């Protein structure tokens, strides 16, 4: 990305880059104008009918929670658009990028504002698809394509589970409108389907928000251009899962399943991701893992339902979006200026990039949780929330302490070391300060972190309290955001965090090496993903080989076996079996004819001689003709005899040029085929006997018999049917024979030509 950015001669991509920024800014202003009335406890709802028969409407709801998200999305979106207008200036596909990012932002806004489950799902999938396109923006590299596909598969699979969960939820609650579902209170938690719904929805939320064990796609998604990472992986896409859990919190929380799933998954993800973050040497990768940590923390907080936890959730959501977007954009500035993101190489940038350094310092201090930044307040509230957990507060607070201390160390690696410590090696480019459109975002966001820290009231009434109200139904339990809450347990934990974090930062070199060794030794999820895909492909190939063998006999065998199982199975299921056939009426002539036919058929089946096979086929044909003549069908018999003669003549001509049936020493013995053949024969006989047990419907026959002479002036009824009543059928029959003849002629003619050409080639050799 750095190369693409630095080759651009132009300073900006023009209106195509500025228009989305203006759009986002306008949306931000509009959402901000809604804030006062939302803060007063109002909600805004608009709905259009979409598919009323399915209970699907395009309805949107603005309350505290969705407004907070909408402001983050549109606000950070505007800054990111401004930033990328310069960062990607001169990129040949900038127009495409701007389109994807705009589409993504609008989808994300739709997601957080939708009040209908199905509409929410549609926006959810739109973010999946657009983020796939954005992550795969560098599609000329194999890594970019793989990362994009991985993100698409993981989140797409989760989304399918989510859809199933939504449909179950909609039918259980009797409505697809979120506001109506959540208004039902505790009814949902007592429903028998609560657990299946919860599992399906959490599968969607956890994959989207990259909770362990679905975390592996997020660091890979850093293949996207840096502004995309800043936008998707700080404020928006990955928080969609968190948003969903928060949205459903009023209806779903409070059960043991909710509490333990979210607490354990969140706590584990937070600590695991913080460790992984310290291990990274690429600044962007390190930030990616800290995002995982933040998502884990938010999930953990959502598992609870105390006022502290909810206030901490609302605050940390905003804190994290501000400092993380700022840091991602800052890393982009460094990459842009120096051409590298390697923590080991970077150093001493404070002099060359003072503004970037300033923004990085503010954002990192907020991330590390120093007063007077908003991050400090967020951290205090997180500890208070953790300590308010009903069961196992020590465990939850311990996990949070570990994660926060690691965050502190990562903040040092990302934002202190590159600026103030000596460089680890020669940089690809001489560093220079980034242009102002790229600095506006990081500086503004970082400064906001400080301003909100100093004046928490700004945030308290406008966003935090309304968000808590969305989660708990009331603002009464919302805790006050304050820098100084006196010497209490959270403050002591904060001091411990700083001490531990400092120690971790100072020792991060050896720790990183140890972690790298541990990760090398442990089975990696990313490699596991590759194995999973390979296994899937191998399975597909295996089952294709099994079903589609390329051997005609297998297909014919499967066809006849299906016929046998289908017919015999139906008869067995219905309990219908033919009565024993009554053979007493058979006369000797018919018995003799049948014996002839049976003998001919059996001989054809078992003979190894072509001449014997032809002769016995002829015997069968003539036997059948004799049957026709015996039972009043002389026309049919004549046709049969004629055709039988032609068959023998044609086959004999062909046989002159064809090899013998079996190679010397080979016998055609196929017991398995014989069993199937006998089965099919038996089932055909059984069905014919069943048909014969039912009375004959003679209506058509009676019509032909009475109408043949008066209407068609023919005394041979069969002939009249063929040439008069069903003349069109006969015409079709003639056409079929003609086409078969033409096709046969074409085949034979090309055979002759081919033989001539091969003969010529042979002579040439």
């Amino acid at each position, binding site marked *: 990305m750095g190369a693409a950015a630095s080759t651009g001669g132009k300073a900006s991509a023009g209106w195509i880059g500025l228009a989305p920024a203006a759009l986002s800014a306008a949306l931000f202003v509009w959402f901000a104008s809604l804030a006062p009335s939302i803060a007063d406890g109002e909600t805004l709802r608009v709905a259009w009918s979409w598919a009323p028969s399915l209970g699907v409407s395009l309805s949107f709801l603005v309350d505290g929670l969705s407004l907070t998200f909408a402001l983050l999305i549109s606000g950070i979106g505007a800054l990111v658009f401004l930033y990328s207008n310069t960062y990607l200036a001169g990129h040949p596909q900038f127009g495409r990028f701007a389109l994807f990012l705009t589409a993504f932002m609008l989808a994300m806004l739709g997601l957080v504002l939708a009040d209908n489950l199905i509409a929410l799902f549609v926006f959810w999938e739109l973010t999946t698809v657009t983020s796939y396109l954005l992550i795969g923006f560098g599609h000329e590299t194999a890594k970019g394509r793989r990362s994009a596909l991985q993100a698409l598969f993981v989140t797409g699979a989760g989304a399918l589970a989510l859809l199933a969960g939504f449909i179950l939820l909609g039918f259980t609650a009797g409505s697809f409108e979120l506001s109506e579902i959540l208004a039902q209170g505790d009814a949902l938690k007592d429903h028998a389907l609560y657990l299946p719904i919860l599992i399906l929805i959490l599968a969607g939320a956890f994959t989207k928000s990259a909770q362990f064990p679905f975390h592996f796609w997020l660091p890979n998604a850093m293949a996207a251009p840096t502004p995309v990472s800043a936008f998707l992986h700080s404020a928006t896409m990955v928080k969609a899962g968190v948003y969903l859990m928060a949205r459903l919190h009023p209806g779903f929380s409070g059960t043991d399943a909710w509490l333990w799933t979210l607490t354990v998954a969140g706590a584990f993800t937070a600590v695991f991701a913080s460790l992984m973050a310290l291990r990274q040497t690429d600044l962007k990768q390190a930030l990616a893992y800290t995002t995982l940590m933040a998502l884990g923390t938010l999930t953990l907080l959502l598992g609870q339902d105390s006022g502290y936890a909810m206030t901490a959730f609302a605050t940390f959501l905003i804190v994290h979006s501000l400092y993380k977007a700022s840091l991602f954009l800052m890393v982009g500035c460094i990459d842009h200026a120096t051409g590298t993101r390697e923590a080991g190489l970077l150093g001493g940038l404070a002099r060359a990039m003072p503004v970037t350094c300033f923004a990085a310092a503010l954002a990192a201090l907020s991330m590390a949780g120093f007063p007077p930044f908003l991050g400090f307040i967020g951290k205090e509230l997180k500890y208070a929330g953790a300590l308010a957990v009903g069961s196992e507060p020590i465990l939850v607070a311990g996990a949070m302490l570990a994660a926060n201390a690691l965050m502190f160390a990562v903040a040092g690696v990302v934002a202190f070391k590159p600026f103030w410590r000596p460089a680890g090696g020669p940089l690809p480019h001489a560093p220079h300060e980034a242009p102002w459109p790229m600095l506006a975002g990081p500086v503004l966001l970082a400064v906001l972190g400080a301003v909100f820290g100093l004046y928490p009231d700004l945030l308290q009434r406008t966003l935090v309290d309304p968000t808590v109200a969305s989660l708990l139904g009331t603002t009464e339990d919302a805790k006050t955001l304050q820098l100084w809450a006196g010497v209490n347990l959270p403050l002591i934990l904060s001091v411990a965090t700083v001490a531990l974090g400092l120690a971790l930062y100072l020792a991060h070199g050896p720790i990183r090496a140890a972690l790298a060794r541990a990760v090398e030794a442990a089975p990696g999820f990313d490699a596991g993903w590759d194995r999973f895909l390979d296994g899937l492909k191998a399975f597909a190939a295996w089952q294709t*080989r099994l079903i589609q063998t390329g051997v005609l006999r297998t297909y014919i065998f499967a066809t006849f076996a299906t016929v046998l199982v289908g017919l015999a199975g139906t008869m067995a299921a219905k309990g219908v079996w033919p009565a024993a056939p009554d053979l007493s009426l058979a006369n000797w002539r018919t018995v003799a004819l049948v014996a002839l036919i049976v003998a001919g058929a059996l001989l054809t089946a078992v003979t190894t001689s072509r001449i014997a096979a032809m002769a016995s086929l002829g015997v069968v044909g003539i036997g059948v003709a004799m049957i026709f003549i015996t*039972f009043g069908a002389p026309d049919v018999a004549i046709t049969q005899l004629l055709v039988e003669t032609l068959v023998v003549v044609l086959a004999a001509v062909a046989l002159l040029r064809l090899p013998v049936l079996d190679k010397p020493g080979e016998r055609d013995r196929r017991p398995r085929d014989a069993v199937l053949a006998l089965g099919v024969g038996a089932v055909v006989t059984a069905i014919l006997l069943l048909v014969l047990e039912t009375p004959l419907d003679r209506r058509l026959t009676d019509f032909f018999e009475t109408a043949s002479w008066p209407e068609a002036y023919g005394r041979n009824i069969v002939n009249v049917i063929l040439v008069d009543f069903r003349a069109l059928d006969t015409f079709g029959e003639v056409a079929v024979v003609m086409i078969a003849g033409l096709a046969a002629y074409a085949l034979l003619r090309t*055979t002759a030509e081919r033989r001539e050409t091969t003969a010529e080639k042979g002579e040439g050799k």
Partner: protein
Amino acid sequence: MEALLALAIGVLVAAAVYLMLARNLLRFIFGLVLISNAANLTIFTAGRLVEGAPPLVPVGLDAPAGTVANALPQALVLTAIVIGFGLFAFALTLMFRAYTTLGTLNGDEMRVAEPREPGEGSAMR
């Protein structure tokens, strides 16, 4: 009488299926001829059998006198016989052509459209 023919049809079908499952395509074609005969007989028998009374309208009458053989299945079978012959002729030519091109009548070895995968043994041995 019909029951006897039903048994004969079963044998014809069994022989035909056995032949159609053979490796040698010539046997497949023999099976094709047999199964055509079996189908024709099935239609004929299902319309019930009447011995020695072809479906004709005697001169001077408007309809057949007394019970005559069922004309409808006869008309159907007549069509089926001719179409069956067309199918046989085409299949025979196709097989002949396949033999001149590929040099084998063994259906298992005709793998132009679906070539063998690497490492795949010959199935169904």
